[in-house]
């Protein structure tokens, strides 16, 4: 399979900082809890979307990354393909803790609904009204070759016009997101080497 696809935009989110195209667009206080950072980074966008506050940390991070990278971008035909290492483990643990004490079991439905890692794709889709292909994979490290082939397949088979790909890893305050847009037009070729390079910065 051969296609001509390009990486057109990238966002990095880690250590209370958000960069778009390598430029810092939002920076919180170093070492501040993720919840504080996420809330402030969201408020900085001045977006009226109360549902954000109800999301778990993984969804908040994926949502923020998508929000920053999709500003001024065409969303029609946008597919989503994300991956991480821990799945929804952070929320799974919180849910498990709520049912630990058999004499005092009050699991939160709002927590339970996030015990699937692909829920973050749903949150992005709802926000941007996407009715497109989406997939979430769990890998030890970012599978650049696999993701490159998967995104190109979506483009070549006309299942998508562009693809938002990336890594959204969150577990107990350790977090990192690297999201990038793949399009049929652009300058930077969508190759495994170039994808790996995004993860070095």
């Amino acid at each position, binding site marked *: 399979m051969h296609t001509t696809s390009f990486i057109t935009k990238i966002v990095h989110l880690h250590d209370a900082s958000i960069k778009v195209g390598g430029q810092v667009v939002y920076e919180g206080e170093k070492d501040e809890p993720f919840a504080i950072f996420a*809330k402030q980074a969201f408020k900085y966008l001045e977006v009226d979307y*109360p549902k954000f*506050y*109800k999301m778990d940390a993984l969804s908040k991070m994926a949502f923020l990354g998508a929000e920053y990278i999709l500003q001024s971008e065409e969303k029609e035909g946008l597919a989503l393909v994300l991956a991480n290492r821990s799945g929804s483990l952070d929320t799974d643990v919180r849910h498990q803790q709520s049912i630990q004490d058999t004499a005092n079991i*009050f*699991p*939160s*439905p*709002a927590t339970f*609904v996030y015990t699937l890692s692909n829920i973050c794709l749903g949150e992005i889709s709802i926000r941007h009204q996407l009715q497109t292909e989406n997939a979430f994979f769990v890998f030890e490290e970012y599978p650049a070759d696999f993701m490159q082939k998967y995104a190109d397949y979506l483009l070549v088979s006309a299942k998508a016009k562009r693809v938002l790909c990336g890594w959204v890893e969150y577990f107990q305050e350790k977090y990192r997101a690297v999201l990038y847009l793949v399009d049929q037009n652009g300058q930077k070729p969508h190759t495994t080497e170039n994808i790996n390079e995004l993860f070095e910065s």
Partner: protein
Amino acid sequence: MAELKEELKGKIIEVLNLEDVAVEDIQDDDALFGDGLGLDSIDALELIVLMDKEYGIKLSDPKQGKSIFQSVQTMADYIAANRTK
């Protein structure tokens, strides 16, 4: 009853993560769902858990919810009449 309603408003804000909503913003008769606070189906489940956890009330019939969760006033009325803790 006034104290219970204030307490309930605070718990609703806390449990449902209603950012930028204060106790004073919620009127006793404001609709909790629809055009009022705009709560959704997951919020409804959280309110059922809240009734159980905080007031010892188990709602087994989902049809009850529609009338009980109309407003803070209707919730407080039901809690006052049925609480076990």
